[in-house]
């Protein structure tokens, strides 16, 4: 059996690793290389400029603002989304009142319906979601302000995306709305695989819903939550946050830089201002932030694994 084992393993590993090296690792290295040049992105000529892009970045107020917002996205979004999703998933799968003749563990009434409804936003492309919410946030004729007028709150007519204090929260709310359903389904699947006898035992011991959640559900779901956390962080730092900020916000990135995020800044520098080298520099910074985020999450989340 041992004969040819390594050849077998190498045969399976080589193609994916090769692809990974070609399409992931190599572009990384290239990006780092370009961050030391003055490449514009519009002509093949460029020269090395050493660390000047990095020096410039450290002096760039807009960069620091975008970093701050990206970090805020990476912390707040997973917290809110995963918190909400856990709550919803728990109520759908476990939190129901016990009904006569039914199973020991069940969700609230109509839970199968909710499960589908929560997943709806996931079906829509994020670009469409962003556009829809941009309409809802329209201060003149949007759904939100019309609703406020409808219930007699004529004096309360926020500018939503036009207000620097509200804009970032408005954008985050859209991302929460559009992603929470995915995690509800993800966590529901995780909860479904938790053996029912564990819950029965907890119930026999007189545990209430909160105790059941924190003592039984959450620890057994920890791996899923952790993966979800990393995944949500990617969305918050990467493509998804770019899409909503680019489509919805003033400027985009405003008002007064209140919603600018790192990916947006990379995009603007590379494709609006013709400063691709500086954009790759910000990209390298974004890479470091993302790696640090993943490292922190995986590190903090390390727990003893429970077997069941």
């Amino acid at each position: 059996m041992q004969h040819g084992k390594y050849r077998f393993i190498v045969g399976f590993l080589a193609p994916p690793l090769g692809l990974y090296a070609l399409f992931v690792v190599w572009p990384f290295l290239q990006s780092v290389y370009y961050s030391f040049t003055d490449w514009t992105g519009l002509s093949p000529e460029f020269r090395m400029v050493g660390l000047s892009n990095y020096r410039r970045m450290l002096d760039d107020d807009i960069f620091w603002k975008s970093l701050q917002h990206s970090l805020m996205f990476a912390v707040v979004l997973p917290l809110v989304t995963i918190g909400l999703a856990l709550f919803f998933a728990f109520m759908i799968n476990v939190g129901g009142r016990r009904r006569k003749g039914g199973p020991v563990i069940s969700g609230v009434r109509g839970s199968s319906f909710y499960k589908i409804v929560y997943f709806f936003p996931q079906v829509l492309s994020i670009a469409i979601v962003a556009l829809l919410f941009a309409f809802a946030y329209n201060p003149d004729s949007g759904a939100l302000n019309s609703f406020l007028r409808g219930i007699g709150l004529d004096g309360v007519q926020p500018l939503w995306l036009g207000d620097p204090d509200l804009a970032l929260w408005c954008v985050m709310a859209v991302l929460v709305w559009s992603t929470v359903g995915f995690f509800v389904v993800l966590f529901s699947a995780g909860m479904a695989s938790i053996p029912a006898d564990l819950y029965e035992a907890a119930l026999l011991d007189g545990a209430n819903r909160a105790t059941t959640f924190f003592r039984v559900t959450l620890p057994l779901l920890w791996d899923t939550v952790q993966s979800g956390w990393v995944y949500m962080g990617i969305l918050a730092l990467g493509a998804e946050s770019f899409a909503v900020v680019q489509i919805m916000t003033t400027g985009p990135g405003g008002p007064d830089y209140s919603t600018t995020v790192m990916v947006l800044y990379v995009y603007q520098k590379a494709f609006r201002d013709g400063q691709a080298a500086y954009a790759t520099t910000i990209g390298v910074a974004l890479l470091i932030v993302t790696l640090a985020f993943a490292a922190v999450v995986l590190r903090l989340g390390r727990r003893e694994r429970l077997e069941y």
Partner: protein
Amino acid sequence: MGSPSEYNGSDREGFEKSGSEQNGDAGVGRRDVIRRAAALGLISFPATGFLAACASSGGGGEGKAKAGKKTAQNPLAVNETTQMEFVLFDGGFGKEYAEDAVKIYEKSFPRAKVKFSATQKIQSTLQPRFNQGTPPDLIDNSGAEQMDMGVLVGKDQLADLTPLLDAPSYDDPKRRVRDTLRPGIVEMGQFDGAPVWIMYYAYTVYGVWYSQKALDSLDATYPQTWDEMLAVCAKAKKKGMAGWTYAGKYPYYLPFSLYPMIGKVGGREVLDAIDNLEPNAWRHPAVKACFDAYYELYQKGYVLRGTPGLDHIQSQTAWAEGKALFLPNGSWVENESANVIPQDFDLAVSAPTGIDSSDKMPFGTVWASGGEPFIVPAKATNTAGAMEQLRIMLGEASSKNFTSKVKSLTAYNGGTDGITLTPGLKSGVAALDKAGSNVVNPRLQDWYVQLQKEKIGVSGLGEMMAGRITPAEAIKKIQEFADATAKDTSIKHYKHQ
């Protein structure tokens, strides 16, 4: 104009699986390692990888086409068999006008093939080709994905169009092409020095757009001084109509009426100083007077409520519905908002209102300039063919065809006789007639895009008109932005000639 919405999907694979992976078995450690590696890879890919996808790969051009025979019909000596490649921005003006012009080219050079394509994705299609040194021959570099002109010029990527300008015009061999163009077109194509890098084909009139019918219903005429402006706005307010609205999410629409107003109040030199990024250019009293005037619109409640949260389409819709009277915009608004502007709206444009009779320039001073920038890359194989194509488009017949099809003027001076003009276009032509030589052309929006849009527009004017900073604060902030841009060595700087 407006916000580009560009979005490239998300990477959702890889994590879908994790839900069902929970029922652990042995070998936890190894699987965790793999999962972490995968997670790290997934995270970092979108962050940095994509930029290098358009990395440069050097390489030279394929060499130039040989010159053809120079004749009266072929003054640019186009090679009669070489292919000409033409990439058009497929935007508000469509592509029909260019296809028609290509047909004329094909008729003149029956043995030459024309490779014509139209796209909205100018930059993503063409940036790699510039990087490889194999760009097409003629490009309409326009739209949300416009490639930065300053960089293209600074990196010697464009061909000088002087041969085209000095060639005899298409209709009259006695006049050169440059003598048939509207004022400002040639200058706009220059960056520093004599070479002309860009041929702007469309001609845009900026100003204050309104419904003549609505103004008539207020028993008012278009106000020439700011006191009159405030009086008209007060009248409108009594009828439940706001005086002004603007693209609050893209406040860089405000300059369309504000900059020519500054020019009218303080003279051309003020605008030139601003464009040249001179120290204290924004601290000129004329700038302060105009900022104060606009701020007064906000203070007196003459700006439609909620405007800072409206994008260009939403503000244009509110304005077309009669919720607001005046709107700073460009002549594309007639086409862009055609589906919401009522039949009897009677669209009109006026040069901006000034302060009073002590203004340096007369009422009627208007901002008009070229749009749809056509460029010929320096490394194109058939530059003569590209210029010939432009020469055809700048002829009277093609120009008329453009105007009647897309409701916009062209760089060709004239070309409006014998075709029915829409109300907005007619009013634009009248505004140009009234202005005569008093046409100003602020250049910030093509020289320093980031400064104009994001800094002056969003962070300066936008904040001021939302009432969050005062005119004095706005001027201080904008002057600092301008100074920073002047100092920034990574930006190429330009001066008025």
